[in-house]
């Protein structure tokens, strides 16, 4: 398909297939029109979308800025979810390692039985193992709850930001009233 770079701007994006319609909605608000959608050649869970927009669209600089911020906000949603439990996972991992090591040491001390102090060390290790297991459960639960809350707050802040960006974009781009009008616009552009 030949491109008319003098009259149109083009944008190629790969979008997570399950979020395609929502994300395309955001791009439409920014004045982009879908030209072609197909499966991404590299990733099976992504869709490849080509979009275009009139080169001389009003408020282009602002729209470009809003677009970058929108893309950043959309991508940060995944980032927030993906990194929500990093801290708690690290803490739990350390405690689990302590638990395993102490359990192993306790078992070794109890089984050796040749020294009187082995029993003492064994009990110390067992207590530490139990404490670390308990701490892993409690810290895990508390930290995870706190992290969930923090992630939820961040996500709602991002969603609010996206809403405000969309609202601003809607004011800058004259939106087609209905689908027929949109189609008519596309035919005219084409």
């Amino acid at each position: 398909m030949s491109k008319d770079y003098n009259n149109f701007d083009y944008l190629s994006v790969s979008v997570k297939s399950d979020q395609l319609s929502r994300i395309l909605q955001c791009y439409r608000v920014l004045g982009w029109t879908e030209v072609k959608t197909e499966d991404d050649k590299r990733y099976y869970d992504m869709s490849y979308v080509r979009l275009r927009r009139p080169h001389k669209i009003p408020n282009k600089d602002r729209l470009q800025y809003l677009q970058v911020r929108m893309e950043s906000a959309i991508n940060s949603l995944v980032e927030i979810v993906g990194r929500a439990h990093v801290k708690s996972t690290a803490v739990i991992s350390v405690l689990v390692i302590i638990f395993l090591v102490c359990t192993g040491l306790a078992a070794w001390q109890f089984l050796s039985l040749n020294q009187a102090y082995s029993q003492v060390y064994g009990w110390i290790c067992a207590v530490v193992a139990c404490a670390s297991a308990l701490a892993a459960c409690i810290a895990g639960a508390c930290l995870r709850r706190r992290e969930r809350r923090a992630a939820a707050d961040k996500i709602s802040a991002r969603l609010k930001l996206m809403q405000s960006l969309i609202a601003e974009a809607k004011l800058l781009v004259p939106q087609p009233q209905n689908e027929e009008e949109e189609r008519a616009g596309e035919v005219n552009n084409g």
Partner: protein
Amino acid sequence: MDKSSRASHSLEDRSRRRRQRFTEDKLVKIRTEHSAGSFKTIFAALIILFQLGIIILLGTLPAFALWWYLLILAAISIITAFSVLSSHRAAQAKAVWVLFVLVFFFGGFIIYFMSNDKYMYARARRRHRAIFARSEKFLPEYAALNAAPDMKLTCSYLSRAGKFAAYNNTKLQYFPSGAQLFDDVIEKLKSARSFVFIEYYAVSDGVLLNRIWDILKQKAEEGVDVRLIYDDVGSRAFSRGMRKKMRDSGVQVKVFNRLISWFTFAMNYRDHRKIIVIDGCIAYTGGSNIADEYVNEKHMHGYWKDTGIRLEGEAVDAMTLFFLRQWEFITKKSFDYSPYFGHYQTLYSPYVVAPYVGGPEYELTICKSVFESVINSARQKLYIMTPYFIPDDSVVQSLINKALAGVDVRIILPSVPDKYYVYLVTRDNAEKLIKYGVKIYYLRDSFVHSKLVLTESCAVVGTVNFDMRSFYQQFENGILTDDKNVVAAVAADFERTFPDCDHPASAAKNGLARAVAIALLRFISPLM
């Protein structure tokens, strides 16, 4: 199911199996987020480092056999250190060089002398001077009529330091983005009749270059004299194919300071200027280069904030002269400049426009001095937009003094870095000024590439960053003006940008690793 359809299905299955799961933390991946052409630079850098190693090794080898050779090296290093201290460099640069020469006494002085433009750029500077002397007659007498006293002082400095004239009767148009600048350039290029001169740091293949090329090709075919100067480091992504296409169509394409795999510090001097002259009637400059990221066709570092300015009238001649001087320097052929002057449209404007250039061809740091002069002239407000903030102490001190004196000093910086190590120092330098009352702004999700300085009475638009490279090592250009319309347009651009910025109330606290990295980077910042 027949054989052929089964075969095609299995092919599809295989291709599907070959595709991976998308594992990045992203819902949207922009297909143009990539940089091109860095291989050439990395390769040249590695070869140069290898040669540097050999030089140091050869210098050091005899020391293993001859103890007195070490003594001689140490003596030379001490003499070199004294020579550094008595030179006219910035104090910070002196400190770094003295330490470098004394610590690496077995070869450091060789690198110092090889990097010293006084010795290594002397021949080139003589050629520049010869060109200047021949072409001086094309610059009118310094005028600056109607200028305010502070403006008059800066213009007077420019006149004496580089024989740059201050013009009246010039109309300016400010563009708050690269996209707007190049849309205008493309429109005006369509009406070119006799010559088009383009001098750019970065020219890269892409949509923007194709748009410009469509017109340039047509103009070259019509017999318009089209000349292009590009810098070899900045234009890494300017393909050989495209250059050949241009040359075949009659465009004269010249490279500035070709990147060669040969150890020479002259490689450090890059042509960072951005000049377009059309028929001697219209000229453009600003921060934007001819590459897709500058017009936000590509988003390599978030939104790209850039600026530009158009000149019409008397001052266009100065831009033509800057280009022709650089052209003569590169081609090493002298020619008659006179056909390219005096084509400007006669306009009336009472405001002063002073185009200037700076770089290794001048002994004085003209671009830095203009900034200092403008900073010192600020009475109520001083707004700065720059991608990098690594100035030397004198500039920092001027900013602090202004802020303490009650001037509203604001600096807009990027929030997305293009070079992480430079950004670390930039942020640290900027945030250290907060306690003195300087307001620092980071434009969200953006890379700020504009180079602007604004006071209540004048503005500087150009290519000069607030860093040592721009002040001391690169060929730069700028426009100083007191045009009320431009000052208002630049101020409006700043006012529009502030609400989109994060504005830290205090300096960010750095972790140990970060603090050490910043300290090291700050130490070598005069050499960056």
